[in-house]
């Protein structure tokens, strides 16, 4: 009996391995392409860790290898990634050069076009070219055939809001919110909520705006996005000030400062301190105001970015 069981077990194991070996082999890629893919992925990981200069080196190497084998899609990917990192470093000139080359390589029918147009919209938006940014965001929306439609429409809504077309912006951000919820893209859902908060805050619908900001804050906290949490808190602080609750505003700025200073955003922290100083000044607490201002100046001096003329 035991022998029969063992024989059956051995036979089934052999069968499983035989079936497994008969399976389809994954498509192997040329060594140069594999190398470029690895450089690109290392670059993405370095960017996620905040090591931007290392990320740029990896993307440059990926770009070099892709160029050596004339892989257009690979070149476009490396250029867009370089642009994203350069944009984060506020090097808009070089970011623009990278994404412009990517645009010249990707045709509107390419599967990469939506991503390239989205990046171009962000670069032009950062350069203050609203009309140009709007045009590129429109192209990104039109070319998107995947799950990123919510992100593209979010950007379009943001540009419309900045252009002063509030009603259109509200419609688009609601559409983006629905798409992002449907695709479960949480960080873009939070972006839609924050934008809706901004839109409603300007339209004197402050309670609804606070509700949207708080929803965005909950999502950003769950994702652990420090800068986005600070942005939500600052928005809530501004809303409190507009409702004439300076103490509540101070509290939000204090939280934003705490998040920024510990999340590696000294400029954001200095900004929060400066806002606190203004509120203290408004309240007539000169000593506190002065202290916060000095603290802010100290951070900016340490960063070498103090530009204000008045003390």
């Amino acid at each position, binding site marked *: 009996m035991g022998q029969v069981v063992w024989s059956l077990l051995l036979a089934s194991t052999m069968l499983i391995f035989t079936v497994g070996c008969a399976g389809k082999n994954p*498509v192997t890629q040329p060594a140069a392409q594999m190398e470029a*893919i690895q450089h690109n992925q290392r670059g993405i990981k370095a960017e996620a860790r905040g090591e931007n200069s290392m*990320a740029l080196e990896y993307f440059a190497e990926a770009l070099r290898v892709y160029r050596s084998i004339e892989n257009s899609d690979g070149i476009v990917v490396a250029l867009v990634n370089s642009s994203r990192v350069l944009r984060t470093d506020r090097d808009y000139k070089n970011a623009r050069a990278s994404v412009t080359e990517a645009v010249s390589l990707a045709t509107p029918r390419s599967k990469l076009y939506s991503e390239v147009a989205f990046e171009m919209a962000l670069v032009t938006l950062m350069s203050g070219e609203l009309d140009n940014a709007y045009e590129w965001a429109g192209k990104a929306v039109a070319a998107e055939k995947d799950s990123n439609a919510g992100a593209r429409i979010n950007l379009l809504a943001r540009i419309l809001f900045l252009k002063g077309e509030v009603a259109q912006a509200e419609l688009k951000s609601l559409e983006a919110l629905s798409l992002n919820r449907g695709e479960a893209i949480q960080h873009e859902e939070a972006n839609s909520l924050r934008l809706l908060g901004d839109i409603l805050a300007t339209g004197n619908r402050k309670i609804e705006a606070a509700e949207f900001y708080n929803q965005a804050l909950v999502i950003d906290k769950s994702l652990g996005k420090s800068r986005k949490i600070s942005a939500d808190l600052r928005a809530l602080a501004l809303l409190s000030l507009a409702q004439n609750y300076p103490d509540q505003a101070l509290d939000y700025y204090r939280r934003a400062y705490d998040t920024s200073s510990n999340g590696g955003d000294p400029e954001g922290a200095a900004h929060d301190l400066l806002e606190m100083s203004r509120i203290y000044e408004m309240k007539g607490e000169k000593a506190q105001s002065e202290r916060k201002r000095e603290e802010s100046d100290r951070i900016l001096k340490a960063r070498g970015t103090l530009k204000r003329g008045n003390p």
Partner: protein
Amino acid sequence: MSIEEDSRFRHLEKKIGIFAVVATLGFLAVVIFIGVDKDMFTQKYLLKFSADRGTGFSRGMPVKLSGFRIGRINSISLNEQAKVDIEIQIEKKYQKWIKSDSVAKLVKEGMIGDSIIEVSVGKAGSEVLNDGAFITFENTKGLEEIANDIAERVKPVLIEVKEIINYVNDPNGDIKQSMKNIREITTDLHGTREKIDELMVESRLKVGRISSDAETLMRDAGVRIKAIDPVLEKADRSVAAFEQKLPKLLEKAATTMDNLEKTSSNLEKITGKALPKTPVLLNSAEDALHRANKAIDAVMDIWPLKSSAPAPNEIDFVPGDSHE
């Protein structure tokens, strides 16, 4: 009776005969020479044409072809239509050049030369004009007509020049007014120059005052410099003290440098020993890494890991964010 004969009358008849023959021959030679000169012995034929006016034509006027005389005007007469019929006589040997498309023109040889009839050579293949045929005559402009033509063309230019002169001379015109303004400006400039002169004089006085102030300042500075003297003396003393200490400091520095040199040479020796091993170590490390990679690849290639390992994706972007 014998008749005495004068020897001068001897052979008189003969002599008279010879004289008469020579005279006749001379006369004939003159007639022939004149006849040849007047083309009386060459074969000729006639051509005709009509002109509006007979001015410029005269009997015997030469007819030329390519600058070469080929004939003369034989007759000029007024016809029933009040036009002038002109008949030209041309030597027969030139007939082959004058054809139905040949044209006769009244031209001048040079600006002040004689008038002639110029006949053009006909094209090859055209019909040769026979005796009594009509040749086409083309009117050419005379000097007077040319002068009139030029005068007609120059007249509007002259009128315009006259208008320009009038415009320039107009006392209320722009140019006269501008000249007047320039004159006024020049007069004002004189005034300005006088003012500048005054200003210069004033400035010179002020500079004098400033110079005297500067002198006072220099005197004060001298006093102050004198006051610095004790400070300089102190500095001198400090330098002297530093000079005393300097050799010791230099000695110390030299010792430190010696030590540093020894350390460097030790380091060099150690590096010299370690350096040859470095490429070997690096090669070994690279080899080890390569093998490890191969081993991992081999493991990943084994089922069931093979199917669970994600295929390398070429299209992998840094996540984009619409609210960055």
